[in-house]
């Protein structure tokens, strides 16, 4: 029996896909990425690489690092202290960044702000985000001298740029009706923000902030060392680049890993305790 509405391909077979633009775009995105990946592998500069040797050496190195970790150039107490510095750098950059970003994001959210202000902020943060963190750190190290200020302000720039984007997108998802209802009670802008927008987005804001904290921790490892603020990254850099001490690199990696996992656990706990999603 022939039914109406059947779509057929040229060869007479029945189509079952809707053939929407979204679908086509998804498929072509994936295809293009696959092709680019292959081109990438062909283009890579493999000079000086003996894959087999490198892999077995990596295996050996990893074994030395993780199975025989040891600290030779400094003590355990020192290691914990240094990780503490790195965490501190990341934490300050995140907290300061979060506070500043909340305000900027309110003005960057199209539903809370005027179109032009929002555009200007968005373009501004997009540019800041695109500049490598190292450069920000360098600039502030030059201006402020070596120390934590340079590292934190350098990371702060990126944190703000990242969080403003994330926060403002969260704010934009607030139900327009809720805002309208508050406006209709005679609330002013600040009332609406404090009692409508922030409470209904708090969990998302927290999630993004914690995610950024994780990123900042990772960045602080490198940036603390470069900016002269110290931290475990400095020890890592010395151990791998100057002493070539794999055992110490292993131990430092463990220290970083332990702290990172503890932070993850704490942040999940905090989030669930103070800002439950249900």
């Amino acid at each position, binding site marked *: 029996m022939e039914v109406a509405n059947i779509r057929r391909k040229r060869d007479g077979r029945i189509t079952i896909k809707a053939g929407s633009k979204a679908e086509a775009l998804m498929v072509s995105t994936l295809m293009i990425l696959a092709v680019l990946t292959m081109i990438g592998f062909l283009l890579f500069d493999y000079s000086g690489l003996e894959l087999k040797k490198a892999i077995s050496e990596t295996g050996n190195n990893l074994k030395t690092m993780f199975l025989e970790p040891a600290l030779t150039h400094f003590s355990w107490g020192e290691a914990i202290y240094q990780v503490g510095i790195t965490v501190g750098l990341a934490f300050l950059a995140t907290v300061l960044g979060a506070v500043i970003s909340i305000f900027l994001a309110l003005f960057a959210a199209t539903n809370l702000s005027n179109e032009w202000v929002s555009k200007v902020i968005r373009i501004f943060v997009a540019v800041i985000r695109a500049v490598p963190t190292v450069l920000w750190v360098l600039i502030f*190290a*030059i201006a402020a*001298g070596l120390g934590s200020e340079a590292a934190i302000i350098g990371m702060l720039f990126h944190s703000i740029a990242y969080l403003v984007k994330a926060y403002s997108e969260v704010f934009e998802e607030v139900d327009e009706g809720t805002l309208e209802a508050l406006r209709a009670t005679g609330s002013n802008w600040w009332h609406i923000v404090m009692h409508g927008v922030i409470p209904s987005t708090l969990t998302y804001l927290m999630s993004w902030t914690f995610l950024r904290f994780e990123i900042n921790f990772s960045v602080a490892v490198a940036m603390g060392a470069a900016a*002269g603020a110290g931290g475990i990254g*400095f020890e890592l850099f010395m151990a791998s680049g100057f002493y*070539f*001490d794999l055992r110490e690199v292993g131990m430092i990696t463990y220290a970083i890993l332990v702290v990172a996992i503890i932070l993850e656990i704490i942040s999940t706990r905090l989030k669930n305790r103070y800002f439950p999603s249900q």
Partner: protein
Amino acid sequence: SEGSAGADGKEEADDVIDIVWYPNESGSDMKSSRDEIGKIIEEKTDKKVEHHLTTDYAIAIETLVNNNADLAFMGAQGYVEANQKNDAIQPLAVPTGPSGTLDDAVYHSWLAVNVDDQENYKEDGEYAFDTIEDKKMSFVSNSSTSGFKVPSASIIDHFSSKEVYADLAEEDLMEGGELFSQVLFGNSHQGSAVNLLSGNADVAAFCDTCVENYVEVAEGEENKQGSVYKVKEDAAEPFNKVTGSEFTLISVTPVLNAPFVANKDVIGQEDFDKLQALFTSDEVANNEQIFVPEESGESGLFFKTDKERFSEVEDSWFDPIRELSN
């Protein structure tokens, strides 16, 4: 990091002497020397000393240039650049050679090849630069005096007389394709040497003092072209994987010792003079924390074999290096 003052330290910058250390001198094995230098400065000036360690050369130099630090210990090349950007930066003192004078205040920049390949780098029985064309080259880092600036200047000097390489510039040596087939950076002198010995590079640049703990002369004299060095059997990392391997020096260039430099605008003439007197005193020369007796086996910033000490130095002493950059 170390020597951190209270949170209020920075406001009274005048009462603080900030010293910047390069990665080379930032290791914990040199901590006792660093701390000792800090201590004697504190005693002399009644000011607080803050040490700043960084992994980044550019940041170190720029900090001094932009009046955010008082003192730094940096390679001759670093000094020349810093001085060019800000002429308030002046050399305070330079460690001398065994003679106790500036005459031998040098160390050596080497170009080395693996001993088995050494014949390939000779022309008519003599080592010749022509042979390193299209080889895999390893430098230390492009901010290193003896591991890049000095050797690259000699190389450019040699090749620019040829027509094809008339426009050869320092930047062309930083990446493969121009003169070398590939350029690696070891990020440290040890790293550069290991690049050579492990076969990743054909030719490597590094300096004598930086690897002296790991190698010994196997053939010929110290610091002579054609001499062969051998990695000690008990060499520490990173040489532990290449113990026993040998390399030949195809070029040896003396390099001026690294100075302590000061930013006079920040530190002030008075303190500059005080510190210069301090550094060049016999007291410092005999301080075993700073000039560690070689036979003690301890580690430190400087070693004492004979009459080593700090000596005052004129800016013009660095002119040979300055000329390399032009």
